């Protein structure tokens, strides 16, 4: 039982790391109806920018600010050269464009900073917290706890922003209906640039944590794949959904990875580990069959 809890806690905490990436997706989707596949690439770019600036001699805090600046520029450029020209196109086209964008960033980031694998030290050691280990024999990582705290703070902040500010409202309006928003004078350009900058900020936080955990390298772009089932589960438009979805996905995939392969091996013989690659997706899929709009997703309002 104690092992079960250890897996569960570990899963919940790694789920929070997925949520961080998912959050970026949600932001952009909510504000512009764009399913931004490039979020993973942005995480990579952000982390690489931090490391790159530090290599040039900047201290961590300055590097973070500079990297945020770079992500903002990226957001503005994306808006100016891509999104602005694609107003009113079907969501699938915008989605494809972001895949194109992710390719672009995948090439651009290492071109700018080099593609060596590099460490990112943010002064947090990923080690078990001794007293928990001693008294309960459960591994809980300091690093994960800090990450979880950061993620929750970020979510709270963003939820408030969306619900209660003028810009937050405009963001939601744009997500609902580009053209109507345009017609009442909401400048899509600014809104989009802004939301991309915010998404860039979230990517920066995610990149910092993931980068410090796994090293800053190309594989950071794969974090996007971990975030997708979180999104489906939580709903594309819900900030809290990203967190809850992350927790559920994280916990269940870890539990599944531990407890399902032995069962399968019992049936078929062989080694069935590695199911966490698809398990979240299949779970999300089954969940969707029951609730097609996700846990917290907005119901599609339509009248016949």
């Amino acid at each position, binding site marked *: 039982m104690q092992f079960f809890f250890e897996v569960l806690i570990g899963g919940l905490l790694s789920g929070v790391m997925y949520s961080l990436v998912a959050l970026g997706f949600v932001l952009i989707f909510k504000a512009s109806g764009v399913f931004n596949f490039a979020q993973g690439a942005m995480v990579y770019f952000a982390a690489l920018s931090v490391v790159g600036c530090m290599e040039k001699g900047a201290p961590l805090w300055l590097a973070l600010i500079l990297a945020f600046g770079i992500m903002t520029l990226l957001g503005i450029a994306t808006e100016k050269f891509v999104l602005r020209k694609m107003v009113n196109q079907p969501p699938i086209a915008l989605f494809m464009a972001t895949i194109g964008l992710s390719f672009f960033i995948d090439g651009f980031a*290492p071109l700018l900073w080099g593609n*060596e*694998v590099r460490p990112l030290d943010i002064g947090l050691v990923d080690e078990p917290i001794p007293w928990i280990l001693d008294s309960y024999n459960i591994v809980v990582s300091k690093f994960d706890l800090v990450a979880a705290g950061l993620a929750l703070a970020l979510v709270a902040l963003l939820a408030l922003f969306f619900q209660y500010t003028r810009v937050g409202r405009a963001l939601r309006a744009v997500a609902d209906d580009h053209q109507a928003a345009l017609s009442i004078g909401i400048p899509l350009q600014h809104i989009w640039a802004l939301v991309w900058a915010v998404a860039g900020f979230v990517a920066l936080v995610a990149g910092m944590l993931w980068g410090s955990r796994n090293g800053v*390298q190309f594989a950071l772009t794969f974090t996007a794949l971990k975030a997708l089932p979180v999104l489906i589960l939580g709903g594309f438009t819900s900030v809290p959904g990203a967190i809850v979805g992350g927790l559920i996905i994280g916990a269940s995939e870890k539990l599944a990875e531990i407890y399902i392969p032995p069962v399968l091996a019992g049936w078929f013989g062989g080694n069935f580990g590695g*199911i966490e690659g698809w398990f979240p997706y299949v779970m999300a899929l089954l969940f969707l069959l029951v609730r097609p709009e996700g846990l917290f997703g907005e119901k599609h309002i339509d009248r016949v």
Partner: protein
Amino acid sequence: MIKQFKQLAIASSVAAACLGAAIPAAQAAEEQFFMLPSYRVGPYGANGQSFYGGFIDYLSYVNQKGGIDGVQITWEECETEYNNAKGVECYERMKSKAQKAPGPIHTMSTGISYALVDKAAADKLPLAMMGYGLTSAVDGSVFPWAFPLVTTYQMQASAIIKFLKDKNAGSLAGKKIVYLYHDSAYGKEPILALEAESRLNKFDLVQIPVAHPGNEQGAQWQRIRQEKPDYVIMWGWGVMNMTAIKTAQKMGFPRDRMIGSWWAGSEEDTVPAGDAAKGYMSATWNVAGKDVPLIADIEKTVYGAGKGNLKDTSKLGTILYNRGVSAAVLSVEAIRAAQAKHGKGKAMNGEQVRWGLENLNITEARLKQIGATGLLPDVKTSCDNHEGSGKVKLQQWDGAKWVVLTDWIEGNKQLIHPLFQADAAKFAKEKGITPRNCAAEAKK
């Protein structure tokens, strides 16, 4: 549709023109052409940078020293992004240029080498897979054109077991070893060998796969924590390695009881892991460091002349750089061997290079001659043994550099090589290939 086709035709003719422009006109002098389907971007791009940097630097070095008995080496890179289809395209694109006088082809990708095995044989181009690739090609009777040189995953796994056995006073009986592997062809190859070893040495083997790309190993390491193994042998690649090391730290598993394969034992894996990597061990078939005379000489000669391939010279002397050099040394030695038989100072054709690869005999003395003492093990190949060595060293990360722990260790050939032969025989049957008769050829 006609119009579209015309555009396509124009585009392709432009491409063809560019292609033409890219190749310098063939010179009268004898040249040996190396095609390098390499990768410098994508998930494993960082590794490719070092490996191909070393490889190309050695070729430049040879050229600066007058070539292979006067035969200059030319080469061309083509980015594969570690993608099989792109690898095939690269191969097909450069094939015609390589037809006359090819160097052994190094893909540094198991997947691409699989895809090229048949094609290269049909085109009579020798394929070298140093420490990766289709391992059953050790049996040269079925795979005359493919060379898993130096060592294979299976032999390496066996050598690691031998190392652990020595460490434990000659017996692993009753011990528990976790095999943590990248869930792909690469990670699966050694399983049969490890299972054989576990039967032989009576240790418990627990296999835990990690789904690609391996940037999340919480569950796997929790399982390891629960299993409480004595050792963890890890077959990782790219981000999986560093994640494994960091997660081991997080779960409190001692790194000095983790042993990686040679693809999990480079600076690219340990440096980013920081302190967590201290004490981590790995196998390798070449040593790191600039104190090898050859590496020092390359730095002096090639970089001195400003012809170095590395942008980031701090990578000089890293594991993967030195591996690239080692791979190039073997390739060049094969051509030398071929020249020795078929005519010095001449460019060798595919058949001749193949012969060279199959009749390598790089002794300690020869290694010393080229300044590569201790860089790589001695290699002696034959028709029925395309591996030629099967030896690795164990090294340990001390927080700043790799420290070599052992001398060359050879895996259990009697146990492992029959596995290759069985696999090769099955392959031959599926494909309807009649194996060569190595014994008869040896007599000739």
